[in-house]
């Protein structure tokens, strides 16, 4: 029998569709009857959506400029106009 503890332990597997189908069926049945587990999985989903939008930290400006300079040096030949 599937308990809430099992849903919490394998929640990401259920959301990621990596559970075998009998287990998925068990989860779906449990979720149809358990509001707490539905909320919990919804919160895992929301967490992953939030994580996808966490802003990247700033790159130190001097480092960014140095790497861009390296990029530009390497890219210079590709920017040369074609010979007529």
């Amino acid at each position, binding site marked *: 029998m599937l308990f*809430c503890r099992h849903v919490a*332990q394998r929640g990401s597997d259920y959301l990621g569709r990596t559970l075998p189908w009998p287990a998925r069926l068990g989860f779906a049945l449990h979720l149809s009857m358990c509001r707490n587990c539905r909320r919990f999985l919804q*919160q895992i989903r*929301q967490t992953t959506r939030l994580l996808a939008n*966490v802003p*990247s930290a700033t790159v130190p400006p001097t480092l960014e400029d140095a790497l*861009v300079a390296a990029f530009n040096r390497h*890219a210079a030949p590709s920017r040369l106009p074609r010979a007529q």
Partner: protein
Amino acid sequence: MRPRLEIHEANHDAGGSEALVGRLRAGDELTFRNLLRRHHSRMVSVAMAFVANRATAEEVVQETWLAVIEGLPALEEPRALRSWIYSILLNKARRRGARESRIRVFSDFAEADDAEPTTDPDLFTGRGSWAAPVAAWNELDPERVVSGRQLWKHVQAVIDGLPGRQRAVLLLCDMEQSSGSEAARLLGVSEANQRVLLHRARLAVRQAIDGLLHGNGDPQCDPPRAEKIFSEPVTVTIGSDE
């Protein structure tokens, strides 16, 4: 004058990567800046799982970018740009970590992780049901969250505090949008272990958000009202250049 960072819609499909690589090969500086800004800090966080400290991780990432710049013309699969960048990063990080004679390497954590329970047993009764109701996150509208600096800082602090292995998997899967199998391959762990690490990391972040919304008894974390969380607008990079 530093160019403004362009905001692109989320585009993780391979076609986006091919166009991106085309622009990079054509010497498009702004595209390179965007790529750098998009991935740099996360690459440092991932590298820190393999090396002794942040300074070393930053060196490894710089070396990675230089290798990326040099290797772009010969990249055989433009569709796999992000995976290629992280492959370079992780190879360099592992070699640096080995040179520094770190006793703990990423793979050493696998068995320990498997032995630990995924969830806190105190959350459940002896029968396995929730010991307390799961409180709803009614305030957590994703669009409002985008403008919540306090939430971002809190979440970032939790991510930074995760064990290195969990942080690396979380960054790759939920922030860089790698597949589980790709993340497992890049990190040199089994897919089963990758799933366990990812779930534990997600639970830690979920718990932190729950604490922020509902309070967890921590005097530094009184139950904040939703309008307080979302009171400070912040510029957000949404999606990817890829």
